[in-house]
């Protein structure tokens, strides 16, 4: 069970207070109507499944109800950093550099 630092509450809390909401940094296209079916399909359905560094969206559901991002190693389950919505990660996978 993860021990997660909420960047809004500024405290470590148990995983039970949080929900994972999937991969982070998937912006909704600004003009959906201009997207081809393929582009829309990629936005909708295609997600990474990396072994290693992954950026995830989480919400402090039983706490402040704020969303934030976690950079997590999917192999070791280490949380490398947490950062707020709108910020960019400082830890990235080699393949993403």
């Amino acid at each position, binding site marked *: 069970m993860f021990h997660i630092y909420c960047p809004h509450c500024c405290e470590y809390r148990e995983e039970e207070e949080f929900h994972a909401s999937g991969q982070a940094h998937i912006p909704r296209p600004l003009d*959906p*109507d201009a997207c081809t079916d393929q582009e829309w399909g990629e936005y909708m359905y295609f997600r990474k499944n990396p072994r290693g560094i992954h950026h995830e969206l989480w919400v402090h559901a039983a706490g402040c109800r704020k969303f934030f991002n976690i950079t997590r190693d999917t192999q070791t389950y280490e949380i490398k950093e947490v950062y707020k*919505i709108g910020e960019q990660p400082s830890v990235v996978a080699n393949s993403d550099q």
Partner: protein
Amino acid sequence: MTSSSHTHGSQQSNRLQDGGRIDRSKTLTFTYNGKQYKGYAGDTLASALLANGVDIVGRSFKYSRPRGIVAAGAEEPNAIMQVGATEATQIPNVRATQQSLYDGLVAGTTNGWPSVETDLMEYVGKVGGKMMPPGFYYKTFMFPQSMWETYETYIRKAAGLGRAPKERDPDSYDKMNQHCDVMIVGAGPAGLAAALTAALAGARVIIADEQSEFGGSLLSSTETLDGKPASEWVTDVVKELATFDDVMMLPNSQVNGYHDHNFLTIQQHCTDQFADRAPNGQVAQRLHRVRAKWVILATGAHERPLVFGNNDVPGCMVANAVSTYINRYGVVPGNDLVLMTSNDNAYRTALDWHDAGRNVVAIVDSRKNPQGTLVDAARERGITIMVGSGVIDVQGGKRVTGVSIAPLNDAGDEVAGSIVKMKADTVASSGGWSPVIHLSCHTGARPVWNDDILGFTPGATVQKQLTAGAINGSFSTAQALLEGLSAAQDAVQLLGLTEVEVALPVTEEITESKAMALFHIPHTKPTAKAPKQFVDYQNDVTAAGIELACREGFESIEHVKRYTAMGFGTDQGKLGNINGMAIAAKTLNQTIPQTGTTIFRPNYTPVTFGAIAGRDCGALFDPERYTAMHSWHVEHGAKFEDVGLWKRPWYYPKANETMQDALNRECVATRESVGILDASTLGKIDIQGKDAREFLGRVYSNAWAKLPIGKCRYGLMCGEDGMVFDDGVTSCLGENHFLMTTTSGGAAHVLEWLEIYHQTEWPELEVYFTTVTDHWATMTISGPNSRKLLEKITDGDVSKDSMGFMDWKTMKVAGIPARVFRISFTGELSFEINVQANYGLHVWKALFEHGEEFNLTPYGTETMHILRAEKGFIIAGQDTDGSVHPFDLGLSWAVAMKKPFSFIGKRGMQREDCVRPDRKQLVGLKTIDPKVVLPEGAQGVLDPNAPIPMPMVGHVTSSYWSANLNRSIAMGFVKGGLEKMGEKVFYPLADGRVIEAEICNPVFLDPKGERQHV
């Protein structure tokens, strides 16, 4: 030499007169397989059974061979007991070696049929041995597949895996959340030294050990510390630890799981170690959930037995276990011992046996020239040492009667001389020690082979984990103490505390010669033809089986494991896995690290469901949500339905009414006069902010720009894929203030949906969401007399002209400030009255006081479903399943494609697949026979005579008997259904019937909507 001169009491023939940590003044009576025995306080069930000369404690899984106790701790594979004096207190899978003896304990073997002494399956095993190679179960019993469940029943009965109680457990179980600086697992020399060091530095410490008392190996050792028995040092340290407020000591507590981010689960045996039932006010077991800043694993090591012919015959034991029974429990489990070893350490067992006054037949050492303190001690005692030799097999069935000893070649893989036979009843063996690395594997670290210690040690980890003592392969007491101290000093430093110097006790100095890497004793015959050489006792995996698996092409140890079932028992192969890997490696001509290792997963030992569940059972299993009017519903005989966590009235049967009778009455009463529904469970979200209206336009498919204050509107919510997932009515309370309602079950999801879009996509919009579901009690009065009823108890003007359909107003109802919404889910004139939840029951009762003249009838969710189906209104989640968009539902009127912002779902519902004309569309269904009600879920076909598998065109989503229409009504999906009005569709059912229906408009009643506009 006779054994009687060394016994105490007539029954406990193997009990020494003195020595050990048992209390001979406290005799305990226990029952084993229906017979009474006596033991002493301080015994485990295993030590008491051995004291009483009980040899057989079970039958093996596959061959049904008699099995005895081989170990003294968590690694015991054979003595797996069913414990419990009554049906309600049964606990399966208890290791006799870990169960403290108490007065009145009732235990039995979990297998053996009809009994462990005479077991019918044994003959199957004897006859069928050759026919039961590895993979036997897969190869034989899997076909035909339909028979597997039948086979399994008998295999389980014959093999015995314990059983769950049939009655409710009367005891309570607890969970506790703990936080500490240093969590120490294991209270042997390393753990105790670590605990003392950390405690003196001021750290918050938890130290847990599976045993009933702290001390680990020191409890059963003849070693001295500071020149005194080691146990005295243990007593002193435990006393000192008890003086620290921030040290929690947990004996009888198995750390069963080491999870991510230094989260550990500990199963503490509280009262089940001394009573069948927990005394009043106490819990049987407690699960500690620990979050530790640093973890020190001081879990010790398990001794490996050697693998030789018939090594499972009762009387074959692990060497150190024999010493433990002698030194800790005062029990010598036999008379004539043969010790076989590949190392010096095991000589202690022969010394202990000899010093207890019994006969050591011989020490059989696989090494040619053993030298060292312990070897000398054996020689001084005149014990015969046979070097360069091994016990290649033993004789005996229910107990060892003799051994065959043969010289071995230098490599230890061939017999190199003639066999000598000797009489013996006990064979203790030692192939060295395997560090207990299980917990270190739980978080994913791969163990690393260490040639110096002939074992795996913990691999690199990302956890804040330190290790100390035998887990590192540091097997001597001196090293263990030192590593415990130094691990704790490291933790103290990392925690930013100040180190305090700790003096360690002086240990004995001994010299030892190098151990030999030996796992499998060769036989004169090839392994496949030699007497069975067991590797994993619990799953009856033999050396021959592993060799066969390798020959059949299983090269990965993970595959060998799965094929042979090695390590798949409740003991997870604690005793046998390394031997099995060594045999596989040798067969494959590889080293052990090349063959790989297996990883251990939680839990370390079986955990009771009671400990896992804790208090979360019965009424506390799951939270229940009640509306403010719940007590009224209960008093009036409502049947309840679970909607999410809510308990909602389902229907209100009267006297002898059947469910259908009640529904018919409720439906007719509502349409003829007035009915009332507790609608409090509908999700309610208060939405405020200057951009609230814009936000609604983005998340709903329909238009919100022009909804004036005082008006309500139905809204449809879709995902980005264009599929409907929730709906509800949202009302404009003020220019920047709306009240959204959601389905009862969807409220939490919708709130999170709104929040995620606001926070991640449109943070520039100024809008706030507050859940107010529980703040309001909601009652819906519906029917032609609902206005007359409301007028009797309100100060508001609810006339047709003043309050039109889809209007809302504030007013007082029964003297209470209320929001009243004129909206309708029944198609009748209808008012939804919302008051502060505390007033809900008062207003509800007031409505009944004034409703008598209108025959005000309460109705539940089922009547609500029927009434809305009569009007063709959908229920999100029943008539939608995540694969239908608004057009599929015939709700194109609720999609505003021209809105300036591309609302959620707009792009999705325009994908190629979403605009196909032959999509499944929601239509009404009228059975040709009006009395027949279609089953929900039935699949429709266009041609009932088509060959199977028939092309299916869609399923029935809602189907009811409508008392108001005196016929059945239904809705369902039909491919291209909106273009098929009047056509026929057929529903072939599992019982052979084929129901024919006509596709129709889903609005069965009042298609013009006149009734709600009065």
